[in-house]
């Protein structure tokens, strides 16, 4: 299996190098954990949806953190190409911060792009929409700053700033989120926890180049490719 994978990775690298798009992939060994995402942690999103969340099928607003899983296979390094699934014209591009667990705890952070197939139903787990191959480009990990509450994350598409989002929008800020998640599960060294996503995240179609930046963080880039191209 590993021989085949490395052959395949090498071939992909050669092909994409010819068209000027070097690929770095999570399976190179930089990431071996599980990534957990946090949904419905944007104050304005939950306020806007409050009437819907009091009706069926939800019946009550969310109480505990609403988490989802992006398995390690979703994770790709900065510069990666994310393929549009067949039949999908544009992907949700949610720039966020990933808390990175190390042997000494949640001591590191990275920029991350939580890629999704746009969906507005939160009733059932959105595995098909959230957990596809390559749907979590991440930047390099740096030490976690003491306070992330005012961090602004900027998303550019093809060089134009299309979205700005501050972690001051989080319902559960970083320390609260860590504590509320720890009440029922223990992230392990290697695991990541995405702190939340903006309700008004942009979308991007084939060929678009994404760049995500935030003060003090190494910038993160990714490109969206047509179905079957570069996946």
């Amino acid at each position, binding site marked *: *299996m590993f021989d085949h994978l490395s052959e395949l990775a090498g071939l992909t690298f050669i092909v994409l190098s010819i068209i000027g798009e070097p690929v770095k992939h999570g399976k190179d060994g930089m990431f071996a954990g599980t990534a957990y995402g946090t949904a419905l942690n944007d104050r304005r999103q939950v306020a806007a949806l409050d009437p819907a969340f009091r009706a069926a099928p939800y*019946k009550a607003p969310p109480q505990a953190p609403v*988490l989802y*899983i992006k398995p390690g296979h979703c994770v790709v390094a900065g510069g990666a190409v994310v393929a549009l699934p067949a039949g999908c014209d544009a992907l949700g591009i949610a720039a966020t911060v990933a808390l990175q667990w190390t042997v000494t705890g949640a001591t590191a952070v990275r920029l991350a792009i939580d890629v999704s197939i746009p969906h507005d139903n939160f009733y*059932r*787990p959105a595995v*098909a929409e959230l957990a596809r*191959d390559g749907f979590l480009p991440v930047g390099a990990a740096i030490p976690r700053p003491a306070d992330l509450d005012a961090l602004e994350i900027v998303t550019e598409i093809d060089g134009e700033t299309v979205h700005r989002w501050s972690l001051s929008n989080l319902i559960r800020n970083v320390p609260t989120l860590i504590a509320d998640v720890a009440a029922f*599960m223990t992230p392990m060294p290697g695991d990541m926890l995405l702190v939340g996503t903006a309700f008004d995240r942009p979308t991007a179609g084939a060929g678009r180049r994404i760049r995500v930046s935030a003060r003090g963080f190494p910038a993160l880039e990714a490109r969206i490719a047509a179905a079957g191209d570069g996946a």
Partner: protein
Amino acid sequence: MKHVRLVHAGREQWGVLSADGASVHLASGHDVAFDEAVLLPPVTPGARIFALGLNYADHSAELGFKAPDKPLVFLKGPNSLVAHGGTAWRPRDAEQMHPECELVAVIGQTARNVAEDDALAFVGGYTVACDYAVREYLENYYRPNLRVKNRDALTPLGPWVVNAADVGDPQALRLSTTINGTEVQSGSTADMVFPIARLIAYLSAIMTLEPGDMILTGTPHGVAFVNDGDAVVCEVEGVGRLAHRVELAP
């Protein structure tokens, strides 16, 4: 052939269970008595763990749901797993924690856009899981949510992975759960709404399945709550008998 993952002489190892079940033969040449082995869940590190909700019509009816029109898939993290002989923790503020005996299919080769007719060939082996749920924590967001299904040590899994070739037809196996010797679940994998081959076809259309990935295929009817000190056994005919204890969380 039954493949066991364990800790021996200070490191994680895999071994093969002897024909009489008494010992595990390690690649290093050592033999370890099965009853004394420090078992781990027989999981490939980094593998994805898929689980199915409402995949037996009788269990769906019991919970007041219609069987879904597409597989209700959710994911689990490795923090949730605990080995045969281990302990599942019942939260102190919840009483409605119930065991769910499940057949687990373990992928044996890379699968992408696999046709249902070919899909069983992509299964390398099978094991058994007890996919507990804690009903007090159910909320209607990404249900079943992680607080219900992804608590630490909430999912006993094992004792081993048995080769698919040794199991025969995976859709004709009896499953059962006992609590302190009393049967609380009894069913047949023949009653899955989405059989294993269809689940593999469905999942492999969404993402690339890799060797080691596991699919917990859902549970038949029978909702019984566990208490501190209970001895629970989940058994799937021809695959294995998975035993564990329940204790109150510290």
